[in-house]
């Protein structure tokens, strides 16, 4: 990538972020994904509404168990439907994905929506060559001769930064390093020119330098293909580098949505602020990191009435919380759930270090 191109991206971004948001690609409305556990259904994604626009990276951030991966799998219809109940709407290209038959959904997945998975070591079929695995979505979504498919695959491999594509084409996954495999997985997701990409923790399993390479690659590709991207991650650093807008999730709900600079400069929800304060690189060396009291409740033990974060900020008076927490637009395009952010402050002294962390 040349300096010039980078500069162009930058200008484009500034323009885009400040002036307008493109047409929406995906509109999620009140999505609820419930899993059956011992006969009862418990919602892991609990009433999420979110819009993704063209050429926009929306990051969904939260700790494990907050429902962010369940959300991604719901959009793609990858949950086991025998044990999962999906409600609400996922509107994509003027159809609700949740109500599509498997056959119709298969016309969308892999074609208009591509997905990038977390662990490059397990996401590829060990018995098929790289070339075959990239060509597979083309088999179902594009009418191409095998020569055309091969050519397209070679192009894709080059686009994801693989130089010796001739060789890689015929190799098996175990012959490649983790970073290379992740590039291949990205190539698969891009195979049929999707308008929406869902990246589920795309860099989590990688080494730092490889993570940086993959982040830069995704940024570059995004600028080329102009599709919407849903980026699911627990790493706020990745969010700061990649995202245009950020949705913070806690216990199945979105608790804060804002444009990325706004979120990092002016985080409001107590959960967002706690997360930012618990990151070592955000703090002075050897300083006390913020500890969020307690643990993320499991979906069976979750108290679904009132502010779900309340038990973890016990010092906040009860009247500060809403009885039925709603999203409030505190600034244009900056939404926060519940009213408890208004007077929120971190307690003095030993932050969140109770005698017993939890029992």
């Amino acid at each position: 990538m040349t300096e010039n191109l980078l500069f162009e991206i930058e200008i484009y971004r500034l323009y885009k972020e400040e002036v307008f948001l493109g047409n929406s690609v995906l509109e999620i409305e009140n999505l609820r994904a419930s899993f059956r556990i011992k006969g009862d259904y418990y919602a892991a994604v609990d009433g999420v509404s979110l819009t993704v626009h063209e050429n926009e990276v929306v990051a969904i951030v939260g700790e494990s168990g907050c429902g962010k991966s369940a959300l991604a799998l719901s959009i793609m219809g990858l949950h086991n439907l025998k044990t999962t109940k999906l409600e609400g709407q996922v509107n994509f290209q003027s159809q609700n994905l949740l109500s599509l038959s498997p056959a119709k959904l298969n016309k969308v997945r892999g074609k208009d929506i591509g997905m990038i998975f977390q662990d490059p070591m397990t996401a590829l079929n060990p018995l098929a060559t790289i070339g075959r695995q990239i060509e597979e979505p083309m088999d179902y979504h594009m009418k191409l001769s095998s020569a055309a498919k091969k050519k397209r695959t070679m192009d894709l491999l080059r686009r994801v930064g693989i130089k010796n594509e001739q060789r890689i084409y015929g190799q098996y996954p175990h012959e490649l390093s983790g970073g290379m495999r992740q590039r291949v997985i990205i190539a698969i997701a891009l195979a049929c020119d999707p308008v929406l990409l869902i990246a589920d923790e795309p860099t989590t399993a990688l080494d730092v330098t490889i993570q940086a390479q993959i982040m830069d690659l995704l940024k570059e590709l995004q600028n080329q293909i102009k599709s919407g991207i849903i980026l699911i991650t627990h790493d706020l650093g990745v969010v700061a580098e990649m995202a245009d807008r950020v949705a913070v999730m806690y216990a199945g709900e979105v608790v804060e949505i804002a444009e990325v600079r706004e979120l990092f400069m002016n985080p409001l929800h107590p959960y967002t602020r706690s997360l930012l304060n618990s990151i070592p690189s955000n703090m002075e060396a050897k300083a006390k990191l913020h500890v969020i009291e307690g643990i993320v409740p499991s979906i069976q033990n979750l108290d679904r009435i009132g502010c779900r974060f309340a038990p973890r900020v016990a010092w906040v008076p009860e009247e500060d919380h809403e009885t039925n927490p709603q999203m409030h637009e505190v600034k244009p395009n900056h939404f926060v759930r519940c009213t408890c952010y208004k007077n929120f402050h971190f307690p003095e002294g030993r932050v969140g270090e109770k005698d017993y962390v939890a029992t």
Partner: protein
Amino acid sequence: MLKFILRRTLIMIPQLFLLSLIVFVLAKAMPGDAITGAFAGDPNATEERKEELREKFGLNDPWYEQYGRWIGNAVQGDFGSSYMYKQPVTTLLAGKVGNTVLLALFTLIITYIIAIPLGIVAGRWTDTWADKLIVTYNYFSFATPLFVFSLLMLFLFSFILGWFPIGGSVDIKIEEGTWDYIVSKMEHLFLPVMSGALLATFGTIQYLRNDIIDTKLKDFVKTARAKGVPERKVYTKHILRNSLLPIAAFLGYEIAGLIGGSIFIESIFSYPGLGQLFLTSIGARDFTVVTALVMILGTATIIGTMLSDIILSIVDPRIRVE
């Protein structure tokens, strides 16, 4: 690849040597010898006469000299003579090997024809009535002893219904090489093969079912679904390929197991193969035959495992040898 096969073959040599040593020593350690066996029930045999014969046949030499003699001949294809049948062991076996191989081969094929579809159905549609039925069948086949089941089959289909012959490998009145001859062979094979196969499906079904259930949850299957691959193709192209791999690899072990397992089946169905010969030879203390048979069964096992290794290295790119 060739290098791998060559090395794997070379490893067989010490294995076989060890096997022969163990077989020989064990045979010697058993009470009695060929002479006691040959004269069993003969009141005229005096101890002097037996001792004289032992001296003559070299049975009083130190064991290693006897072993050297035996292995030297064995390498040249001479396993000595049977005391009971009064003919060279090699000739004796030649007539039986074919029958046993035929039995094992058909049992294997039928086992796979039954087990693979059942395993796939049970693994793909877990917790449906079909799966429950298959699992139940599987437990029955695991729990039923081979000899009980075989006797039942024999009783029902041969004695009561009279559909199949009671014993032997072919009707002796039929001329060799004719169509009727083949039909007769098949008729004789049917019951032993079915009895063996129906009970041998257990491992394959269970393994395949579990492996499919595991593979279904693998990430690469999720990748395939995210590509928009139709469900049927997700199974044929991704899940089954991975799950059938170990089954293919076990082929060698299965062959080895079946040849060893033929002992029961052949005795019950009076099927003239190696297994039946093995039992009668042990009864008669016909040690030359027993040692030769154990050597053959052992070799089959070693070759079987080698075959498995080679198959696996061919079908699985992860361990494919450059």
